[in-house]
């Protein structure tokens, strides 16, 4: 119990004086996950909307696939990306293994299906309401995608934040493709796993507190956005 309280006070102390190692890890985590989020959103928002609005061969299969991939285990994503970018893999020449870029690729693959599948549902719901009007106005499907993403912006933002939460919290994928190399690919989750097993509880706990706080902030933001949209009667 004493260890525990010592670890806590040390953890808060590290956060309080902005320990450089701690800051470096937090910054890298945010950089990797935010970049992955940006790339995933650019791909997944139009993709999810297109799956909702277009009738093309294979759209059913794609929908099932996206929904199934929402629950992808991060370690499996990590493994697949590892096989692709390892020296012997098809993309091995790029030399990406154990770099932040590899971690971004893995997290992008992990959260893009989540964002796409949830976006599809948002757009389907909106189409239910807007469909006849948009057809009546003579809106083409491609334009309809942009219209619905904009009009569903609050719900889409919630979806994107959910993707960010998932990226920040996962450990398996970045561990495998990043390798948890000190000062290079060490992020919050991988550091917590490593330092805990080494018995260095204060750093692990400090990072855990920051991670929890971030998670709370993200979910708080989701809630506030939802409430704000509802109050404006815009959701």
């Amino acid at each position, binding site marked *: 119990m004493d260890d525990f309280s010592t670890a806590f006070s040390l953890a808060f102390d590290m956060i309080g004086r902005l320990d450089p190692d701690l800051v470096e890890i937090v910054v890298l985590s945010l950089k990797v996950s935010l970049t992955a989020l940006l790339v995933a959103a650019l791909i997944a928002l139009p993709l999810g909307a297109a799956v909702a609005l277009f009738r093309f061969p294979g759209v059913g299969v794609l929908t099932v696939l996206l929904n199934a991939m929402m629950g992808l285990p991060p370690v499996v994503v990590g493994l697949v990306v590892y096989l692709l970018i390892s020296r012997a893999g098809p993309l091995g020449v790029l030399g990406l293994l154990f770099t932040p870029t590899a971690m971004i690729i893995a997290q992008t693959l992990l959260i893009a299906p989540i964002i796409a599948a949830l976006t599809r549902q948002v757009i389907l719901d909106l189409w239910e309401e807007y469909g006849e009007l948009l*057809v009546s*106005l003579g809106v083409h499907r491609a*334009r309809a995608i942009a219209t619905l993403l904009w009009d569903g912006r609050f719900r889409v933002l919630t979806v994107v934040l959910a993707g960010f939460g998932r990226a920040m919290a996962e450990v398996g994928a970045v561990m495998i493709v990043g390798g948890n190399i000190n000062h290079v690919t060490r992020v919050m989750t991988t550091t917590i796993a490593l330092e805990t097993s080494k018995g260095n509880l204060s750093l692990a706990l400090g990072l855990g507190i920051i991670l929890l706080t971030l998670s709370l902030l993200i979910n708080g933001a989701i809630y506030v956005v939802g409430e704000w949209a509802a109050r*404006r009667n*815009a959701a």
Partner: protein
Amino acid sequence: MTPSIFPLRIENLVYEVGERALLRGITAEIGATQRTVILGPNGAGKSLLLRLCHGLLAPTGGRVVWQGRKEGAAIRDQAMVFQRPVTLRRSVAANVAYALAIRGVSRGPRRLRVDEVLARTGLTAKARVSARVLSGGEQQRLALARAWASRPQVLFLDEPTANLDPAATRAVEEVILEIQASGTKIVMTTHDLGQARRLGEEILFLCDGRLVERKPADRFFAGPESPEAAAFIEGRLTW
């Protein structure tokens, strides 16, 4: 000036869902000038007929032919207002501007037309307000303004006042008359006899998916020929 899309010819129009025929062979020619009111009880097929004419649905039999246009090519000159007003999650002015942008109206003229139709529908004061916080009557007037802005040759209205109180209904009806006065053909459905009397110049009476009677409004209300129309006017519910 784009050439007229009238007359509208409806040829033996059939709409079936599975085994059920919801429209059973409707034939009519509709001209450009009068206010046409499609009247009938719930489930007669009024809204369906409107959607088929507008091109939102494809008939399972028969044809909708607009003068000089290929099938589906006339929707640019048409507009429709729905029973439950659909408003985009943007400001009142942006709702109208959106419809104009879709029709390719450039920025300068767009702003002028937005101001004009909002003024004529009494919504100028609400231009910057989010459309979603308007009252039901205001939302329906916005839907009318948005439809009007693109200067359609025909405006379809599907029970436009079914959810509104008498004051809001009157405001909507006044706007409908103004839109017609500006040169747009009005085709609307209603099950409200009072509204049909106030707005109808020509009545198409539908019952059970058939066009039972078609007459100038004064003659229709003075002496309906069919037993179904007579029963409907007298308020006897025989279906």
